[in-house]
Every structure is written in structure tokens, then in C-alpha cells.
């Protein structure tokens, strides 16, 4: 009851005309920033932060919160429409989103992304509202050993679950890990595979890699395999009416969104696990337990729903350790922490007592930001789907330019542009040889955290690997990994044995 009263107090603070306007502006800007390849929520918030210092802190944080949500929505657009993920979690969205666009169902994919983002975000915010402090403490139970086991679980499931050929999926995963070892790792402080190039000291930037491997390689594919929107009758299938989901489709994405909302939120509270892990594990869960799980990756709305709901719920989850403990759960939360401190607020256990107006204003503003973001996002779908009607003769050079500008703008580096070009050509040949690219990118994102956590865990135990079995959480996760690895093998052996038995009976 206390919480509900506090939340109402928060709504009383946040629901003013200026705050609603701030939320709408923040959400719209966020959608634009999120949709631009190369820019993410961290950049968006960092750019907007100086402007909000002139505002009342509550209005400022409402605008930033809405921008954060808007970015989460926008990140999926370029993934669905152009196969260029705007940020790391959108890599998972593109697995089903882009095939849907190719089937002329891009509007439905965008609608699904928005609706499931809203559902996932709402589930995440509700969990944050009622269980914020508890969730933050659950997050603290995840030390280096547990985080290492969790990321290892995600890594092990990548190769097996993506692509038609698990061996090639695993090879791609290994390549992703190898690429992630380039540069001075935080775990060791030792340069690796830099070949005396100062550009490689910080490692490979993710955005040029993803833009090259998804965006540019797509341009190379489009060069020969052109889709003529007019000949395919796409214009008649991309109206607003055709983009709306029917009752059956809504019924199919609802369980996926709710499940992923809960899982994504729980992953989001873990320090460093982030929205990518949340979105990917939600996708894995959907593939394992959802209806039509085997069809995921071929253009299913449930795949888009699982990824987007998990991603947005993780964004909400990352606020739990920030507000309750003063520990940012993600890069964006770290920038927000800086903003809060500049306003003279000290996030941590005492914030709920010392500044209840602010905390509950912020939490209520997340509901507001989520509603504004979904309204703004739904309003622009009719315009966005028209992108699919642009002929390849215009799309090829324009996407190519977006790839160049997007990869340059991350670090203002021409090296990144050349790297993107090389990555695109390599990915094109890998795809032609049927090596999936998504496992490579996901492994690349997850590896630095795995390496650091593994090193920290063994430092704590002074080299004793039993630390992974002493912790019940880590032991459970490791058991799951074993099951993941052994299940396909066991299934194969079981099927072979059954066939042998049948043959013997027939004879």
C-alpha cells in the first residue's frame, strides 16, 4: 500500500504539462537517435544531459528516461527494415525482423517490436516499482563466478540455437570470441593481437563491426539479389491497416512478451550483463519453450517480440541497482548516475528516504516515458514502412553512405570506416559459405565481460575452480550449460538407437 501511495505521489509530481511535453520530446529524440546506426542510448543521453541542467531535475530526468526508452524502441527499426542493428540488442531482433520485412511484413514486425517493447518495458517497470530494492540485492548475489557462468550459458547456447548448421554456428561463436580478444583487455592490461597498431589498442569497436557485417554485407547481397517492391506488390501490403496485428498474432506475441519481460528484467539488474544478454536469453527461452520455437530465425513475430520485450525490460531492470544501491547496471545507467550526481542527488539506499519526490517521480516518469515512446513509435510506422518501397537502385548507395557515416561517427575515426569495409566483405563471403553472422557478434559483445568475471572469480578463490561449484547459482547455471551441450548429442543418440530398434524389429 505504501508503495502504491508513493507511486501516486510520483504521478502527481510527474503528470504536469511541461513534464508530459518533456517526455514526448525525449521519446521522439530517442527514437531518432536509436534508429541511427552508430548511435545508441549512451550517446543520446550524453548529448541531451547538458541541456537538461537548465531544467527542473524531475523534468530533466523525465526527458532523459523517455529518451532512454525511445532509443530502445528506435534501435529495432534499422534492424527490421535494413538489417542494420542500431545497437547490440537489436542484433537479435534482426534475426526475425529482417526476414519478415523481406516477406513484405515489415509493418507487422515494427508493430510487434513496439507493442512487445511496451509490454516488456511495462513488466520491467512494475517489477522495479514493487521489488526494486529486493531486485537490487538479488543482483548483488551475482558475483564474478555467477556472472561468468551466466555469460558462459549465453555463449554456449548461441552456436547451437542460431543457424541451420550448429557446427558452423559454433565456429562463428569462436571467431567472435577471438575478435573480442584483440586490444588491451581490462582483465589483463596486456595488448593482444594489435600488430603494433595504435588503432587496435582499444580493441575492435562493436558498431563498425556490426555495421559492416550486417549492413554492408547486405548491400553486397542486394547488388545481385534485387527485390523489386512494385513487382512484389509490396505497396499494397505496407499500408497502416496491413501493418496492424490481428487477434491471433496478438495472442501469439503476448506470452512471448510477458515471459521475456520477466526474464529480461532479471538479467538487466545484473551488473554488466546488460540488455544484449537480456534480449538474447529471452530469444533462447522463446526458442526452447515457445510455440513454433523451431521456426524462429525464419521470420516469426514471436522472435521479434521476445527480443524486444527482453531488451526493454532489461533497460528498466538496470535502474534497480542504480537507485537502490548507487551501482549502475549498464553504460547508460552510468551516464544517468553522472547526471543525478550533478543535480546534487546521491543514488543509494538513502535516496528513497532523502528524496522520495524525486525517486517516485522518476519511477512514475518511466511509465510516462514508456507510454509516450510507444505512442510516438506507433505514429511513425506508416512513414517508416514506406522505406521498404524504395527501389534497390537508391537503397544501395544510400545504405552504403549510412554505413560509412555511422561507423565514422562512433570514434571519429577513418580506421573504423576501413575496418567496416573489410568486415563487410569478410561477412559477405562467410554468409555465402553459410556461416551465420549473428553468433559472431553476440559472442563478441559478451566475451570481455566473461573474461573479466572468470579472472576475478579465480582471483578471489586463489585459483580454485571449485568456486563455480560452491555457489548454488553458478552450479545451477553450469548444470544448465551441460544440459545445453549434451541435449543435442543425447537426442541424436536416442533417435539413432530408436531407428536401430525399429530396423531390428522390422527385420
Amino acid at each position: 500500500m505504501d508503495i502504491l501511495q508513493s507511486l501516486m505521489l510520483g504521478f502527481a509530481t510527474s503528470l504536469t504539462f511541461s513534464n508530459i511535453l518533456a517526455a514526448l520530446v525525449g521519446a521522439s529524440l530517442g527514437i531518432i537517435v536509436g534508429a541511427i546506426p552508430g548511435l545508441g542510448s549512451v550517446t543520446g543521453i550524453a548529448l541531451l544531459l547538458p541541456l537538461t541542467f537548465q531544467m527542473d531535475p524531475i523534468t530533466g530526468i523525465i526527458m532523459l528516461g523517455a529518451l532512454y526508452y525511445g532509443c530502445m524502441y528506435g534501435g529495432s527499426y534499422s534492424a527490421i527494415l535494413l538489417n542494420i542493428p542500431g545497437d547490440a540488442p537489436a542484433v537479435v531482433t534482426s534475426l526475425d525482423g529482417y526476414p519478415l520485412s523481406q516477406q513484405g511484413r515489415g509493418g507487422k514486425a515494427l508493430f510487434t517490436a513496439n507493442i512487445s517493447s511496451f509490454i516488456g518495458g511495462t513488466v520491467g517497470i512494475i517489477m522495479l516499482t514493487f521489488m526494486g530494492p529486493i531486485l537490487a540485492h538479488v543482483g548483488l548475489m551475482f558475483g564474478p563466478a555467477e556472472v561468468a557462468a551466466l555469460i558462459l550459458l549465453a555463449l554456449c547456447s548461441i552456436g547451437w540455437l542460431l543457424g541451420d548448421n550448429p557446427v558452423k554456428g559454433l565456429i562463428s561463436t569462436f571467431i567472435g570470441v577471438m575478435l573480442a580478444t584483440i586490444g588491451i583487455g581490462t582483465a589483463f592490461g596486456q595488448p593482444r593481437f594489435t600488430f603494433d597498431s595504435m588503432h587496435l589498442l582499444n580493441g575492435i569497436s562493436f558498431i563498425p563491426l556490426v555495421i559492416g557485417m550486417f549492413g554492408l554485407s547486405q548491400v553486397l547481397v542486394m547488388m545481385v539479389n534485387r527485390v523489386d517492391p512494385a513487382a512484389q506488390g509490396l505497396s499494397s501490403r505496407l499500408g497502416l491497416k496491413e501493418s496492424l496485428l490481428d487477434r491471433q498474432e496478438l495472442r501469439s506475441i503476448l506470452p512471448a512478451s510477458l515471459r521475456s519481460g520477466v526474464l529480461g528484467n532479471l538479467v538487466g539488474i545484473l551488473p554488466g550483463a546488460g540488455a544484449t544478454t537480456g534480449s538474447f536469453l529471452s530469444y533462447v527461452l522463446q526458442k526452447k519453450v515457445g510455440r513454433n520455437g523451431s521456426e524462429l530465425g525464419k521470420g516469426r513475430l514471436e522472435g521479434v517480440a521476445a527480443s524486444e520485450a527482453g531488451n526493454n525490460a532489461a533497460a528498466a531492470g538496470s535502474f534497480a541497482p542504480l537507485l537502490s544501491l548507487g551501482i549502475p547496471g549498464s553504460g547508460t545507467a552510468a551516464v544517468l548516475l553522472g547526471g543525478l550526481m550533478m543535480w546534487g542527488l546521491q543514488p543509494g539506499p538513502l535516496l528513497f528516504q532523502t528524496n522520495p519526490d524525486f525517486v517516485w517521480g522518476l519511477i512514475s516518469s518511466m511509465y510516462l516515458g514508456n507510454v509516450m515512446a510507444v505512442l510516438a513509435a506507433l505514429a511513425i510506422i506508416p512513414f517508416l514502412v514506406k522505406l521498404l518501397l524504395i527501389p534497390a537502385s537508391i537503397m544501395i548507395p544510400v545504405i552504403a553512405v549510412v554505413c560509412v557515416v555511422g561507423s565514422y561517427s562512433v570514434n571519429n575515426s577513418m580506421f573504423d570506416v576501413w575496418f567496416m569495409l573489410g568486415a563487410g566483405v569478410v561477412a559477405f563471403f562467410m554468409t555465402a559459405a553459410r556461416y551465420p553472422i549473428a553468433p559472431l557478434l553476440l559472442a563478441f559483445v559478451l566475451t570481455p565481460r566473461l573474461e573479466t568475471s572468470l579472472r576475478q572469480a579465480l582471483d578471489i578463490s586463489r585459483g580454485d575452480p571449485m568456486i563455480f561449484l560452491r555457489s548454488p547459482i553458478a552450479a545451477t547455471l553450469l548444470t544448465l550449460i551441460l544440459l545445453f551441450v549434451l541435449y543435442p548429442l543425447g537426442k541424436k543418440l536416442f533417435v539413432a538407437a530408436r531407428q536401430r530398434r525399429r530396423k531390428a524389429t522390422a527385420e
Partner: protein
Amino acid sequence: MSSVNQASAGSGRPWISLLVTLGIIAMGLAWAGFGWLQYGVWMHNGPGAGFFPLVMGLGAALLGGYELLRRRWATDRVGLRNLWPAVAMGMAVATIPLFGMVLAMTLFIVLWMALIERQPWLKSVVIGACTGGVIYLLFGLWLMVAFPPGALIELFR
């Protein structure tokens, strides 16, 4: 990605698959070698900087070898024409120090559309100029990305 699979699955050029797999094996062996010999696999009670490169490199090389032994060389139908955009982009990127980012990219769109796609010059110029304008306004002015100005533009300043 999947468009390749859908649009042109079936026969292809087996040498692409062979070359990619051989490249993966070579990369895996190089990573494993550096990890083992140069970076240290196990140190101070835990994995050293060479642990992941060694394990993942060996894994990639072994699985790549397995793929070689399976001799399944199915590839998608691709040709040299697929690489045209990359070559043209490379040439456009090489001119950035001269023309600057915005102008070089605008010229790339105009020339690509007019010469490769055989679109009318006016249409090509309009689309190139509009894209260049949006890039300048969005990235240059709003997001304040420091684009390389280009030596030629600097001359006229």
C-alpha cells in the same frame, strides 16, 4: 543475410566455402599459437591473457578441420558483381581526405546512381544532395560529429 539463402540457395562456388573454412582454420591456429607462445595461458592462479585465444583458436581450427573433412561445399550463388559496392565505397572513402566526408559521400551517391544504376542525372543529383544535406544537418550540426573537412574545401576557406 537470409536473402542470399532464400534467393540463391543451391549450387554456387565451392571454392568460396573452401577458402573461408581454410581462412578460419588459419586464424584459429594463429590465435592458438600466439595465445600459447606469447601471452601466457595460465598465470597467477588463473587464466592468462592467452587462455581464451588458445582455447577458442583451437576450437575454431578443430571444427574448421571437421568441416573440411565433411566436404560439404554448398555456397550461395555469388559473383564478382556483388563486390562492386565495396570497391566503389573504398574509392569514395579514399577521396574523403580530399573532398571531406559530406561531399565525398554525396559524390558517391550521384556517381553510383548515374553511372552504375543508369538513373537520370537530375534524379541522381537531387537524391545525392538531399542525403548529403541530411547527413550534414543530423550528424554535423545536431550531433556535432567532427567530419574530416577535406583538403580541397580547406583551400577555399
